[in-house]
């Protein structure tokens, strides 16, 4: 029953998402334009340097995932909370975990698909090769999107109004861009402690795992060993998100 409900909610959320022009503008159009555009530009500026394209691709991807998962989950859920839609959904027989989990499932699937579109476009348009370990790349995207959705959901109690959700998610988008290399290798110009702090972000973990998947050399065992650190970082963020969610999530605009 639970799995069925989870899929039902995910499907319902997908239907609403594709009708929502604002969501399509930021979470789809911007994702595709920047996700393809910036690495293509990098490839044109420095032709024949696939490692630069890969770094740019992985960096911008981590950043866009913040927008399309963390930001999107925060915006959708704050809007639904304030419009008493979460309350309405809760009045059905659906379990709380299915209402939130269905939304997360939808965003994870959508973003995995969008990442696939961006990646394929880049393989066709630039010197970027297919990742050496495609499965690991997939794991980075799926796990990364899921953790970011969870954090976006857990972030909503801090957002007083839906209009503020986008603005309040923006710092995380920018930090992800600086940390994961979406804006280029900025961390090299920053003091070491800043890089260390930025390295703690979940988006850095996503970028790290993706980089391992794209690295020219490596073995399956070596990849797993290298990915263990960033994977642990993601797991810690997931635990933080889950704890905050169970503790502070608000279904109702009224404070209990």
């Amino acid at each position: 029953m639970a799995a069925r409900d989870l899929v039902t909610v995910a499907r319902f959320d997908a239907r609403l998402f594709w009708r929502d022009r604002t969501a399509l503008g930021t979470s789809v159009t911007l994702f595709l334009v920047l996700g393809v555009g910036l690495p293509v530009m990098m490839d044109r500026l420095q032709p024949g340097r696939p490692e630069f394209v890969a770094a740019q691709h992985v960096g911008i991807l981590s950043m866009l995932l913040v927008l399309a998962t963390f930001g999107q989950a925060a915006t959708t859920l704050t809007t639904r909370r304030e419009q008493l839609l979460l309350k309405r959904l809760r009045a059905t027989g659906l379990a709380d975990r299915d209402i939130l989990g269905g939304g997360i499932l939808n965003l994870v699937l959508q973003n995995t698909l969008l990442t696939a579109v961006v990646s394929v476009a880049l393989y066709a348009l630039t010197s970027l090769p297919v990742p050496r370990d495609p499965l690991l790349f997939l794991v980075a995207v799926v796990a990364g999107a899921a953790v970011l959705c969870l954090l976006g959901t857990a972030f909503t109690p801090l957002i007083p109004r839906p209009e503020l959700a986008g603005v309040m998610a923006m710092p995380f988008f920018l930090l992800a861009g600086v940390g994961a290399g979406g804006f280029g290798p900025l961390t090299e110009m920053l003091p070491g402690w800043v890089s260390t702090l930025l390295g703690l972000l979940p988006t850095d973990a996503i970028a790290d795992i993706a980089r391992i998947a794209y690295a020219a050399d490596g073995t399956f065992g070596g990849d797993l060993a290298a990915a263990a650190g960033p994977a642990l970082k993601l797991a810690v963020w997931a635990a933080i998100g889950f704890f905050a969610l169970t503790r502070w999530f608000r279904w109702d605009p009224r404070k209990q």
Partner: protein
Amino acid sequence: MTAILVDGLRKHYGDFAAVRDVSFDVSQGEVFALLGRNGAGKTTTLEVLAGFAAPDAGTVRVLGLDPVKDRTEVRRSCGIMLQEAGFFPDLTVAQTVDAWRDFVAAPRPRDEALEMTGLTAKTGTKVRQLSGGEKRRLDLALAILSRPDVLFLDEPTTGMDPEARRNTWDVIRDLAGQGTTVLLTTHYLEEAQRLASRMAIMDHGEVVASGGMAETLAAQTGRVAFELPGAVTPEELPLPPSSVEGRTAVYRIADPDLAARTLLNWAGERGLRLHGLEVRTATLEDLFLDLAADADGRPENEHAKEVA
């Protein structure tokens, strides 16, 4: 069998005591009304029963289950019409009902739910284009979709036109006839009287009257008022008024027609006119004024009871 049990319920929001020591029970297949003005604690009581908020103290059971601990199980057997809940504005009525049919087990067919709530003509209309009363009806359609054993209705007919209100009452009565337990909150005396077999009147978070007493109070829903003519004193009137507010004599009685006829005959015989004569059904507000007056021990109310 007891379908709903509330025993010593208390619920605070910060420093505000929304519900203080409320107890009542509802048998299976019964329609029970919680009557009260805005802020009386009706909605809070209902939200605790529906598992939206945990009680601070007291016991609450729905079909023998704890609405907070066994929330999912309770929700599957309950239909809930919240006083305030949003809709997805860009979905049509049909799309909304279809989506909700996916959320519940063994749902009613969409057309049946829309027919029952009189929304068939609005099937293709976007929810944002519905009137307040139509949204209320859609709310009811969603609440009854799962053929629930227990139906919670929070002010179900607020914003409806008279026809829709009567239609909604019919739906509620039919469902109760089929064995559905209904707990409804309302601030319409008439609604409580027409639908409920038992009722409790709430005020400031407490039950101030329940069972027979509440019914007696709700029965005193007639109100006749007029300006005392010229030099006439209240004592000269053929019926002693419940109260005199300035120069206005007010009666609160079960049969306002009879009282009005008696008074008009009396005035006619004396060539007097009853200016500003008003004969109407009392509101809950009138009833509470009565209750307050009773608490003050104003002697006029003794007369009102004699008339009633």
